[in-house]
């Protein structure tokens, strides 16, 4: 059984009769008894997407999946091409299939990821929980504010925008949590 806390971007689970994959984390909020989440999910059979909520405590059936370790080889428009590190076969996933994960990786990373296959077809990717990215734009850092409690928007080298503490600056390397896109800490 999968618990609510196990579900993040890239997770495949059964919601009712539908087998869905989480594409985007639209919001995580503190509910009264734990986190509540709003997800963008895609039905991996019909291709239909929908927004879905999740609260703590629900249980979901496991889905039988094949998982292969791969690396992102290159990006061709909206198509992301991954290479199996054992067979050297290439597999394509669309930008939509990858959801939020497109913001956490580039071909230059040499990052090993897990590609999820459902009935022989690649449907999504699971990244390491933490990845390192570089800030390419943000307002100048505030020296002395190391509390990490006040945030500002920052653009990363992948083009996505996230919230980072005030002490961050352009060029700062940061560690991100790929499950929800939050800042973890400054990379050493």
């Amino acid at each position, binding site marked *: 059984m999968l618990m609510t806390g196990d579900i993040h971007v890239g997770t495949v*689970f059964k*919601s*009712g009769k539908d087998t869905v994959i989480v594409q985007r984390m639209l919001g995580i*909020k503190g*509910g009264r008894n734990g986190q*509540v989440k*709003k997800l963008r999910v895609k039905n991996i059979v019909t291709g239909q997407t*929908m927004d879905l*909520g999740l609260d703590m405590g629900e249980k979901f059936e496991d889905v039988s999946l094949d998982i292969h370790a791969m690396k992102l080889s290159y990006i061709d428009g909206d198509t992301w091409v991954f290479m199996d590190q054992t067979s050297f076969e290439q597999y394509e996933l669309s930008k939509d299939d990858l959801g939020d994960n497109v913001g956490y990786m580039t071909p230059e990373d040499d990052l090993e990821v897990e590609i999820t296959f459902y009935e022989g077809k690649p449907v999504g990717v699971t990244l390491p929980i933490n990845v390192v990215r570089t800030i390419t734009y943000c307002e100048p850092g505030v020296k002395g504010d190391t509390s990490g409690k006040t945030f500002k928007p920052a653009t990363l080298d992948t083009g996505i925008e996230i919230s980072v503490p005030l002490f961050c600056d352009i060029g700062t390397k940061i560690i991100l949590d790929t499950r929800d896109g939050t800042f973890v800490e400054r990379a050493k």
Partner: protein
Amino acid sequence: MRDESLTIDILCKVIDNYGDIGVAYRLARALSDLDPVLRLRLVVDGLEAFAPLCPGIDPALAVQEIQGWTVIDWRRGPGPDWRGFEAAPPCRVVECFACNRPDWFEDALFDPARKDKRLVVNLEYLTAEDWADDFHLLESATRSAEVRKRFFMPGFTARTGGLILDKDFMDSRAVLGPEAPAESRCAGRAAILGQMGAAGAASQGSGATAAPARLEEAYWATVFSYERDYGHVVADLAAFQSGDLAAAGSSLLVLAAAGKSQPCFLAAWEAAGRPFPVLALPFVGQETWDRLLLASDFSIVRGEDSLSRAALSGRPFLWQAYPQDGRHQLVKVRAFLERLRPWLGPRDFGTVASATLALNDRDADAPGVRGEESILALLQATLRPDTPAAPTVAPPAAAQAGDRQSLASGFQAFAADLIDHGNLASTLLTFLCDFV
């Protein structure tokens, strides 16, 4: 009222004494008011906390019938001899605050032999944050195609489910609220004092000025909050009494609610030399507590249920939120202030906001926590009347309220808007009934 009786299961886990169960109890009463034929089952984890609120509850019983409801002990379950699910298996379920379900209930709800459609509603806690609008009625995943689940968000906007407007509260509001005639309010206050055994000279403390002949004519301030050093609050209340109230020929009566804040408040009051009369309240039931809040000129409240009652009362109040890691309570407090902002003039809003933020700017609650709060300006503002020609009750349309409208009128208009959003219990009942 419908022809056929519907059964609704309300599930509640008691996390913080009376907060969670208080909302569940109010909801149950409101649903029964709306439809007396409705069958309610309350599955409660913590009957000990429910008993003081709901007269007649026996925490020793696994299943009991109270006020026409079936009340079941979450932990023990109804037992093998109970046949309630045979007659009415769970089909409309309200989970208060995502409390989830006990195993014996889960088995009946997700029984694979059942083919009927079932609906579970996660009634979340009250928040003024924008996500309440976003999550209201959002479909939530479950593992069964036959069991659908939705979020149901209480809130302060028309895009949420609103607040519970139970009949008892609204009836009391008509007698004691800001629109009630002065005689009615005075009689209502006298009744409350009589109930508390506090009529006449029963209240404690001296007061720097002569107390009014009748306590029901005093300025009532209610304090129901968390543990902290109430030195600043007591000093401001004392200054308010000896200054503004004395000049107006009035006096102060503080009602210190039972609970965490009472010993801390009384300690600060003692240390200050008992500068005004205080009535240390015993634990009171929900209906009496509602009347106390409605009868008060000003309140400091904590907790979801009291926040909602204070907001609906139409009286000025301060809200102290439960402290969270990283002072996250300030996010919730600021969100609430933004809901209030359109109804107050800029000067009054600044007064309320600074007092509220100072009261809430802390890492934890403890008797020694001394904040930087100052409530004197706010107390003074509660006495200021509308400037002539200013709107009073009518909510400002698009524009912000101007400073000609008094603070009291602003809170009154805020409450009127919340009431206009409708009764959460009614909206929820319609939602549950219409589900197919």
